[in-house]
């Protein structure tokens, strides 16, 4: 186990360095401050690896530590070169607030790590999809090239979710190489590290906008959430796609509020990572950019609309090669095929679908979280506190539920088995979004907490990118700045 742990630690440090390079290129390295950026780096690196590795696989490269070392070196060199030309000052020195989160989240995360280190992969999805592809990618090719083979997608590999992108199998294969063997037990630790990296990243991203105590409590609830812990151990692909998508959506929201384009860039990177993990992210990402576009058109913010369009095109471009290949080779699953005729024929299924989704969204997270978050958003609307944030959460929440309902409505296989097998998994992204948003919603709905001075300075810095942004003021807590 020591060999495996050392291998995993080494590749995750490399992934953090890859993330650091990306943050320098984007400009978030300076904005977050060195300590904050170091905390943000692991999740950035993981998301970038998920998005970057599939195109590298198509180009003939292998998901090995050697390729990661070269990629990281290139990213760091590029990052340092770009960062040197920037004139912005670094973010302020780190406070001790982060210790609060670390102390609170250490217990659930530590226990989950222990459980993950001995968890056997017995789920059928490992055999049919993730571990199978990881074994194929690990065992073929050399240290630099030749891991991917067209024959992995032949008819001999039917029922292996051939339509899924290769981001997560590539990460698994990297772990296999690092651990020195094909592993289906200790590899679960990698996914707990993804969860921990996500919680830490959300701390850095949301800390300027939230009371540290409330945020620490909320993010500890994310790490300790039974639904997310179960997903981490039993369906890590669902946890990974949820965390990367939610991180992307939160940063896109921050860009809308503050106008800092680096937030949009980093959010796009996370969304690209999400798209490279599971096809389920496609609907959510399309919904997110559609909502953003509608909002910007209604505000007549044409420059921001152009930025959002560029980001959307960039995110789509990262997923396009795989989608084109999958279409060309007819790899797509046929369990959902949208058509008006099918929707009319199956209109009677809607109540069942809605009932199943609403039951899943409540049952698989902390029982009170979703009602509490919705209640907080409604209170914010009624009391006129940060209405834009409340509306953004409510529209996204119900929009995602509607998108899921639309997908299930167009089913081509028996509905009840489909819902019972997948509803509790596909709903994970909605749950994680709610868990992450709850501290912000609760804080704003319940009172007028004074922003700490450092946070106010950071908020000013963000709004300074676009001084006239009305959303920048709307995002702040009800009490306003000091």
């Amino acid at each position, binding site marked *: 186990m020591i060999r495996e742990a050392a291998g995993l630690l080494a590749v995750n440090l490399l992934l953090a360095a890859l993330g650091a390079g990306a943050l320098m290129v984007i400009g978030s390295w300076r904005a977050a401050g060195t300590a904050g950026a170091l905390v943000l780096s692991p999740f950035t690196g993981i998301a970038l690896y998920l998005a970057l590795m599939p195109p590298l696989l198509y180009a003939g490269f292998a998901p090995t530590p050697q390729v990661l070392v070269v990629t990281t070196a290139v990213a760091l060199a590029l990052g340092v070169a770009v960062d040197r030309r920037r004139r912005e000052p670094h973010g302020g020195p780190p406070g001790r607030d982060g210790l609060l989160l670390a102390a609170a989240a250490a217990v659930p995360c530590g226990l989950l790590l222990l459980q993950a280190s001995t968890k056997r992969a017995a789920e059928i999805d490992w055999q049919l999809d993730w571990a199978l592809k990881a074994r194929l990618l690990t065992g073929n090719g050399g240290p630099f090239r030749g891991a991917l083979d067209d024959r992995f997608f032949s008819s001999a590999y039917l029922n292996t979710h051939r339509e899924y992108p290769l981001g997560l199998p590539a990460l698994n294969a990297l772990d296999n190489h690092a651990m020195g063997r094909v592993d289906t037990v200790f590899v679960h630790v990698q996914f707990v590290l993804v969860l921990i990296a996500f919680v830490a990243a959300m701390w850095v991203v949301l800390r300027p906008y939230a009371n540290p105590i409330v945020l620490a409590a909320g993010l500890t609830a994310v790490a300790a959430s039974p639904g997310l812990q179960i997903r981490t151990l*039993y369906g890590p692909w669902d946890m990974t796609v949820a965390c990367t998508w939610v991180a992307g959506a939160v940063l896109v929201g921050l860009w809308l509020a503050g106008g800092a384009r680096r937030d949009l860039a980093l959010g796009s990177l996370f969304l690209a990572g999400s798209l490279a993990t599971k096809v389920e992210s496609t609907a959510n990402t399309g919904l997110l950019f559609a909502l953003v576009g509608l909002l910007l058109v209604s505000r007549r913010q044409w420059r921001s609309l152009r930025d959002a369009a560029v980001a959307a095109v960039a995110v789509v471009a990262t997923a396009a090669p795989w989608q084109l290949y999958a279409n060309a080779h007819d790899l797509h699953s046929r369990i959902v095929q949208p058509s008006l005729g099918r929707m009319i024929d199956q209109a009677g299924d809607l109540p069942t679908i809605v009932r199943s989704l609403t039951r899943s969204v409540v049952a698989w997270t902390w029982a009170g979280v979703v009602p509490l978050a919705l209640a907080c958003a409604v209170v914010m609307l009624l009391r006129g506190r940060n209405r834009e944030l409340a509306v953004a959460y409510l529209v996204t929440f119900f929009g995602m539920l509607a998108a899921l309902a639309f997908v299930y409505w167009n089913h081509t296989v028996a509905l009840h088995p489909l819902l019972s097998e997948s509803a509790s998994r596909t709903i994970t992204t909605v749950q994680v979004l709610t868990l992450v948003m709850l501290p912000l919603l609760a804080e704003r709905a319940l009172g007028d907490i004074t922003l700490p001075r450092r946070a106010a300075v950071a908020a000013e810095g963000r709004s300074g990118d676009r001084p006239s942004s009305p959303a920048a003021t709307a995002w702040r807590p009800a009490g306003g700045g000091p």
Partner: protein
Amino acid sequence: MSVFAVGAVCLGLAVLGVGLWRRHLAASLAVIALALVMAVSTYQSVEARARHLNGLPHASPALEQAPPAYRKRGYQDLARAAISRIPAGDTYAMVPVTPQGGSFWLRYVLAPRIRVEPSQTRWVLVLGGTPQQAGIAGAHSWRYGDNWLVRR
């Protein structure tokens, strides 16, 4: 695990919330509300996890073990022999003479060997019948229960 972890976190949050009461009323309310949510749902979360552990494939064998229904048919021995004889970078095919099932498990456990059509490889796994019945002629063949490994 969850009860103690969540209990400790809830206790800490509640203490923090009460401690903040005079300085930041709203913050303390939010923290206490979160602590209550976590505490109240601890019972439910443990139940949900237990239901998950008992109801889903936690009790099933590790991926490297043949599914229980196929163990008597010699799959484990067939897989072991195929792994030892077929080089890791090579290809193989599976030809079921009678419907056997379990080919997904064999496909998984034989990776990184790549499964192809019978005409594209010299290694063939014949399931549930003889190579003659499958129309496979080979230089060497090895029997494992009802199954055969053939090298052409």
